[in-house]
């Protein structure tokens, strides 16, 4: 009909989209970068993963449903996935040797021996660290944690639950988890 107008509308649409997307992204950049750092244990690799995730998110942000509320868990799920792929594909493969506890004991023993939560946290499996981060640090409801991890809410719950036990084996009933 009126190609010029249609073209103009489309381009303003893209500009608005772009601004909205960037502002939404920047609002969650901090948690995204922290999540990637926790998962990859390397600041530079974490920056790369977040950048790669941001570009992937931009390419398919038209698939996002649920508005700004859903943006955080949607984007963090892309970041978590990116971190898993990074880890699978590169030289990190040799690191699990170093990851195992230097004292040679099991994580439970290490915790009982007086190591702190920070040490126990970094000994958790990569996805457990992501689960703990989402639930305890970001205070996400279990449904959102599940979305980030790409699992069912029940699976997310048991992951958080087991990880919490590993961080503090003497955890008291009903403490900290609803």
């Amino acid at each position: 009909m009126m190609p010029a107008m249609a073209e103009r509308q489309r381009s303003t649409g893209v500009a608005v989209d772009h601004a909205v997307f960037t502002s939404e992204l920047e609002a969650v950049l901090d948690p995204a970068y922290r999540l990637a750092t926790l998962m990859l244990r390397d600041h530079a690799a974490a920056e790369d993963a977040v950048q790669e995730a941001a570009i992937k998110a931009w390419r398919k942000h038209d698939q996002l449903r649920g508005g700004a509320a859903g943006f955080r868990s949607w984007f963090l799920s892309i970041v978590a996935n990116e971190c898993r792929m990074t880890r699978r594909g590169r030289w990190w493969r040799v690191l699990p040797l170093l990851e195992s506890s230097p004292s040679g004991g099991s994580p439970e023993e290490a915790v009982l021996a007086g190591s702190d939560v920070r040490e126990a946290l970094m000994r958790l499996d990569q996805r457990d660290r992501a689960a703990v981060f989402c639930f305890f640090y970001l205070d996400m409801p279990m449904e959102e944690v599940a979305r980030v991890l790409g699992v069912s809410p029940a699976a997310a719950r048991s992951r958080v639950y087991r990880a919490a036990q590993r961080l503090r084996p003497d955890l008291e009933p009903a403490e900290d988890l609803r």
Partner: protein
Amino acid sequence: MSHRRSLRDEIREAIEAETRPAHPALAARIREGIEQRPAGGPRVPRLAVAIATLVAVAVIAGLVATSRLIGPAPAPAVTPTPAPLPTATAPVVVVTPQAPPPTAAPAPTTSSAPFVCTTGPSSGAASGPPIQPSGGRGITTIRAGAQPGYDRFVMEFDGGVPEYVISPQSGTTFARDPTGQPVTLRGSAGLGVVLRGAKRGDVPYLGPTSLTPGLTEIQEVQLTGDFEGVVSFGIGLARPGCYRVLTLTNPSRLVIDVVSAP
């Protein structure tokens, strides 16, 4: 518990120590990266193209093979060619890294069966998958909700359903295990639930310890005991009710349905 910091605080502190805020340069780098790329364009990854090609080849080969087996029918040889084209876009879905939406728990198929209930005690042996390496048959959470014709109380387990005993009682006063202290719930009648081997001794129950769901029959639920692998709940009912027990799987659940008054 004032002498001890909460696990949440300790975890926050640990994460703050292990990570740092995103550098402003990262935001700038990302903005630049995004500006150079068109949004939302269906950029088909190479892997998807490869899969699509393979699928197309397989479909053509299959059709050719079947048409040869069936006999001399030259006409169908023309029709399969457009078919692979639509399939070429479909495998894109396979490689998108976005997480699939969490799947809803399957609806219990038993709900359509006639509602057979009891007013007496009932019990059951442990069932379902074996004990998990991490110490499973652990109760993970509880919830209550209204269903057409009855109120439902659900206990969910990591592993199988443990051995259970359900005992109706006339009042709503339960004894706490192991202290024996009385606890009185809302309502006028009660159901006591005892789960044996519901968890390893040192694994705490981290789900809700009480529910006040505001339902017509189930008025209150409280965790009345969590000691040496025995977990007990008290359920306060509006009136003495007829109930049924179901065990569901995936995840393992023990369900108590209390019939609503007509």
